[in-house]
């Protein structure tokens, strides 16, 4: 049907991709102190499309349209802005460079479009500058680099819109005041600066992977964005390093499980109960591929260890064929490198598989009072599971009850309620 082909189509995620590129290009021309101005110009350009295209249709070349409008808006702003003068040529040049990157062709995997411009790379390093507080770094990166709205960021981090906006504004002010350069850090600074970037991407991914509110078990958009950027970094020469591949591998393995993590009615399925034939083979392949590249050299990071553990799960057909002794060994290394109650909790689950539920419970005892997990539902929930397996339903019920007092998404809540009901039922049965 030739008629249908003649209607211009919008490539998936076109706006997100191009807005990231345009913000980066404009930040270079305006200077890092005018990051906010760059974002406003791009937002205005997209808004013009939003106002016009519903009536006039999508233009034959939507990308060219967006760049033309953004350029005109930028030049217009320059005319009115007394602090930035003589940047007209810089605007034209950097936008035309970004536009040619977009013209270079559609990415092979539209879902991950694995290419970022050099300016985008600089923008990531700018937003993840270690002088910016960690929370602000994450908020700024999610907004400026990943194109999330303030409302979406507030939702993901259980915060208010105003609080997130303030965080972002403060970060922008700091960038302006300290005159941070727009650059990929020099080689001697790169490893440390890259660590700060990876931490932001890792936290963003985890935030998406374990949504704490609402019906959604996973905020796939957040995970996908974090994975996309990590993949981009892994594919860019200055940041193509083992540690980046290790993080990309870990994210891919996690993503592969998503189809099995929720059943047909939207309910949570635990790792042990998941139908592993549902694990996404494309993500698994990519996960193993990145793991190979992560193994170059002698570097061992927390991402390496977590990716290797995830690879063990991916290689096993189920929990009964998992090499738990090796997994516990890796958790021991991970704990040594990064002592954290969350890691210790995950290790306890592996210990329970290896040595039985009592040993798992004992391992949890050490971290039960740690303030970092005071509100974390997964700790009492794990205790509840292990206590149920030991046929101690009264204590199990107490643990599930405690878990329900923590913050979790609706599907997790329903899951915990079912486990609680089962424990109570068993408690009644054995007391008769």
């Amino acid at each position, binding site marked *: 049907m030739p*008629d*249908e082909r003649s*209607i211009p189509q*919008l490539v998936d*995620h*076109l*706006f*997100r991709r*191009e*807005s990231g590129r345009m913000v980066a290009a404009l930040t270079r021309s305006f200077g890092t102190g005018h990051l906010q101005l760059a974002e406003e110009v791009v*937002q205005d350009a*997209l*808004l013009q*499309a*939003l*106002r*016009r*295209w*519903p*009536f*006039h*249709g*999508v233009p034959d070349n939507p990308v060219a349209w967006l760049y033309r409008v953004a350029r005109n808006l930028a030049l217009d702003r320059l005319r009115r802005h007394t602090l930035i003068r003589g940047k007209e040529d810089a605007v034209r040049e950097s936008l035309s460079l970004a536009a040619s990157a977009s013209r270079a062709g559609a990415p092979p995997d539209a879902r991950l479009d694995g290419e970022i411009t050099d300016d985008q790379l600089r923008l990531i390093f700018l937003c993840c500058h270690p002088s910016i507080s960690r929370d602000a770094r994450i908020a700024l990166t999610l907004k400026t680099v990943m*194109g*999330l*709205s*303030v*409302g*979406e960021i507030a939702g993901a981090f259980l915060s208010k*819109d105003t609080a997130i906006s303030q965080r972002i504004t403060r970060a922008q002010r700091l960038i302006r005041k300290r005159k941070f350069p727009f650059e990929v850090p020099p080689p001697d600074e790169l490893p440390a600066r890259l660590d700060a970037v990876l931490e932001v991407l890792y936290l963003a991914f985890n935030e998406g992977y374990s949504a704490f509110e609402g019906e959604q078990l996973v905020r796939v*958009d957040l995970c996908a964005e974090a994975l996309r950027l990590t993949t981009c970094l892994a594919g860019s020469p200055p940041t193509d390093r083992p540690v980046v591949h290790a993080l990309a591998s870990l994210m891919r393995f996690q993503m592969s499980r998503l189809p099995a993590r929720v059943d047909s009615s939207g309910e949570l399925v635990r790792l042990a109960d998941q139908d592993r034939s549902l694990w996404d083979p494309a993500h698994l392949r990519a996960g193993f591929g990145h793991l190979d590249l992560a193994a170059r050299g002698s570097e061992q990071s927390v991402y390496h260890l977590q990716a290797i553990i995830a690879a063990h799960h991916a290689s096993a057909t189920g929990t009964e064929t998992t090499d738990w002794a090796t997994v516990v060994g890796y958790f021991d290394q991970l704990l040594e490198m990064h002592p954290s109650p969350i890691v210790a909790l995950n290790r306890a689950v592996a210990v329970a598989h290896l040595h039985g539920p009592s040993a798992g419970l004992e391992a949890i005892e050490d971290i039960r009072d740690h303030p970092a997990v005071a509100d974390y539902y997964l700790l009492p929930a794990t205790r509840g599971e292990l206590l149920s397996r030991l046929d101690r339903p009264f204590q199990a019920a107490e643990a599930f009850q405690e878990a329900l007092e923590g913050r979790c998404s609706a599907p997790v809540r329903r899951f915990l309620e079912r486990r609680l009901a089962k424990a109570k039922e068993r408690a009644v049965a054995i007391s008769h």
Partner: protein
Amino acid sequence: MATYMFLLYNGPDDFDNISPEDMQGVIERYKAWGDSLEKAGKLVGSNKLVDEEGRVMRGRGGNITITDGPFSETKELIGGYFAVNAASYEEAVELAKGCPHLDYGTLEIRAIDEDH
């Protein structure tokens, strides 16, 4: 068969705080609706009106006053229109029901008087 004007009031706007991804989503909804009208051979044309810079002219007893406006702050500002072929108001209403604009603003349907 008559031509009906779908007058779209105020919008889409109020989108200052949505992500690029969501903006594209909104455009795609309008596009899908517009494309479906076109494929069904119902669409006569559509246009957006410029938000600002209008003129309001009023005449009384030979005196004409000309003022700027209406402005986009005005509640009842027509943002644009679709002209659609339909057999009746009932059909026109059915066609308009799929318009995403109904999530954001008012849509008014008026038949073009063809009884010359």
